[in-house]
């Protein structure tokens, strides 16, 4: 605190900076929790980082980042498309008529305004269904993948609870699936959280053994949001169908990016999100199989829209946008995939050819190239994120980016704490350019080098000391 005052007159900004956590406290916090128990050694490193952070006389905003510094240099490059993607101009163009002229309630059956909107909604439903090989009648519009996941996990479990009381999921699922399972556990359900292998994929044998006669649902995500691994959905679907267990997959990160077919893959429920496929936020869909019929207990009660599974007026512009996004994704899938693969290779090769001790988390082959999760050994992830202020990145899921805990997904992979702490997710999308990737490679190489330069751990590694062999003093 006194440090900040010493920098100059206690202006409004300086006083404001005292209220929220300033950059140096954040840094101190994360290094305290991280790497190893080597508090003694790390304090030196922290002091050096602190000195560097306070050297510049810039006010520090509530976010803990020096926002004015970022603003001066221009808008950061957006490399966080797993959190949300920019909307495609074609999607906005499809939506605008329904936000200006065609504002009717799609459930109004008595006038033209209602019919126009209904036509838009049904076209959107058809477009979503076409993308995943489903029938339009099997598509339920929701507010997003979180709601779709909640609906399927809780809905199926509760509907069949008189006969079945067991759910299977994985340790690397999205928080909304895991949390829904926790709620069910409190309601008396038994939940198996399958472990994943070191590459992030589940073991099919383990899954098969975990299925019991009283298992109601298996819920396994298609593409992981943090490490991008693609689970063997078709094989899982086959096992579930053979054992007569419903299979739900959270495909928010997969739909429109990799080819999916609910019938070929024996998927019974599939969650879809609008804003991950360059569509609008606040809309998603749930595919619910009709034959053999999957029954759910609805979470929302009301007017009985969406086959009674999700009451509430369907938001026409958002549905039209989701439909357009799906149609574009279907048409552009090959083009986008080739481009994202090339950019992804450019990024990975650019970084790994210039810096050592970089680990790619998750299976390199069975993964979506647009999600690259790298761990930079001997570098603290949060410090690197702050150094890379010209790039909008995240260390993992946006839902947990406020906490400094290492990602539970990386922990489930068996990653050491220090490696889980030093991970950064690079999200490449439809609108990412070569110039951006080159810029990112340049900055990452520069800052990883700089941060390692001031790390005593890195010094020891350079001297050939095996860090694992060191007995750190206990405090």
């Amino acid at each position, binding site marked *: 605190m006194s440090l900040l005052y010493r920098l100059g007159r206690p202006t409004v900004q300086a006083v404001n900076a005292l209220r929220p956590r300033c950059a140096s406290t954040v840094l101190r916090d994360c290094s305290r929790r991280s790497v190893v128990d080597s508090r003694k050694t790390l304090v030196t490193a922290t002091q050096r980082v602190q000195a560097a952070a306070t050297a510049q006389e810039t006010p520090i905003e509530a976010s803990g980042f020096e926002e004015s510094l970022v603003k001066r*240099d*221009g*808008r950061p*490059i957006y490399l966080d498309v797993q959190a949300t993607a920019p909307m495609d*101009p*074609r999607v906005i163009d499809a939506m605008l008529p329904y936000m200006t002229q065609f504002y009717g309630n799609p459930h109004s059956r008595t006038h033209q305004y209602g019919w126009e909107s209904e036509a838009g909604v049904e076209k959107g439903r058809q477009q979503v269904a076409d993308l995943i090989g489903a029938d339009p009648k099997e598509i339920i519009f929701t507010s997003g993948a979180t709601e779709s996941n909640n609906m399927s996990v809780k809905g199926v479990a509760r509907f069949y609870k008189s006969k079945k009381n067991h759910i299977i999921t994985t340790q690397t699922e999205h928080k909304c699936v895991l949390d829904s399972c926790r709620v069910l556990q409190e309601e008396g359900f038994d939940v198996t959280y399958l472990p994943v292998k070191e590459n992030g994929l589940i073991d099919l044998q383990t899954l098969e053994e975990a299925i019991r006669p009283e298992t109601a649902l298996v819920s396994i995500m298609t593409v992981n949001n943090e490490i991008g691994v693609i689970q063997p959905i078709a094989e899982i679907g086959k096992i579930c169908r053979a054992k007569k267990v419903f299979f739900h997959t959270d495909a928010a990160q997969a739909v429109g990016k990799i080819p999916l077919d609910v019938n070929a893959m024996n998927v019974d429920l599939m969650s879809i999100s609008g804003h991950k496929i360059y569509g609008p936020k606040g809309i998603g869909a749930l595919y619910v199989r009709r034959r053999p019929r999957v029954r759910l207990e609805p979470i929302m009660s009301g007017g009985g829209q969406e086959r009674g599974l999700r009451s509430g007026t369907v938001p026409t512009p958002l549905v039209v946008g989701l439909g357009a996004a799906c149609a574009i994704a279907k048409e552009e899938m090959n083009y986008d995939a080739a481009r994202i693969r090339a950019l992804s290779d450019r990024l990975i090769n650019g970084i790994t050819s210039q810096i050592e001790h970089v680990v790619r988390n998750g299976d390199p082959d069975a993964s979506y190239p647009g999600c690259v999760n790298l761990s930079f050994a001997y570098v603290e992830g949060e410090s690197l994120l702050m150094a890379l202020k010209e790039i909008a990145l995240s260390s993992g899921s946006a839902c947990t980016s406020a906490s400094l805990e290492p990602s539970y997904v990386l922990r489930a992979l068996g990653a050491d704490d220090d490696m889980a702490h030093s991970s950064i997710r690079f999200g490449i999308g439809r609108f990412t350019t070569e110039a951006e990737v080159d*810029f990112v490679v340049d900055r990452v190489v520069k800052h990883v080098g700089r941060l390692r330069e001031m790390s005593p751990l890195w010094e020891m590694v350079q001297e050939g000391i095996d860090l694992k062999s060191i007995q750190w003093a206990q405090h």
Partner: protein
Amino acid sequence: MLALSSNHRAITMSFISVTSKSLASMTVCRTFLRSLTSASSPASPTKRQIISLYRDLIRSSRVFASHNYRDYIHRRAQDAFRKNATETDPKRIQALYERGKRDLEVARRQGWLNAQFRADKSVVDR
């Protein structure tokens, strides 16, 4: 004064990039043209119409304030014309032309809209 001169340089830079872009577009058009000479039917659009569609699409991309969209539309138009440069079926050419015209309308509208809500320039866009 300093700001003025740096601004001046930015303008010159953008002019250079425009010229290089239009040069690239000319090459694409020429390949497309060569393929078209063999297939001409009353339903097909004329060479002039196709060149003008291509030019309009490239021009429409420049209106976007966000460089990501600008680059995407430029690149997407170029790749689409390149991919279909060998197309000989007049019906298909007609369909592609109609499609391109619809996309041009979208690009023009959305470019205008995008330019209405400008944000700071990206760190790579200067």
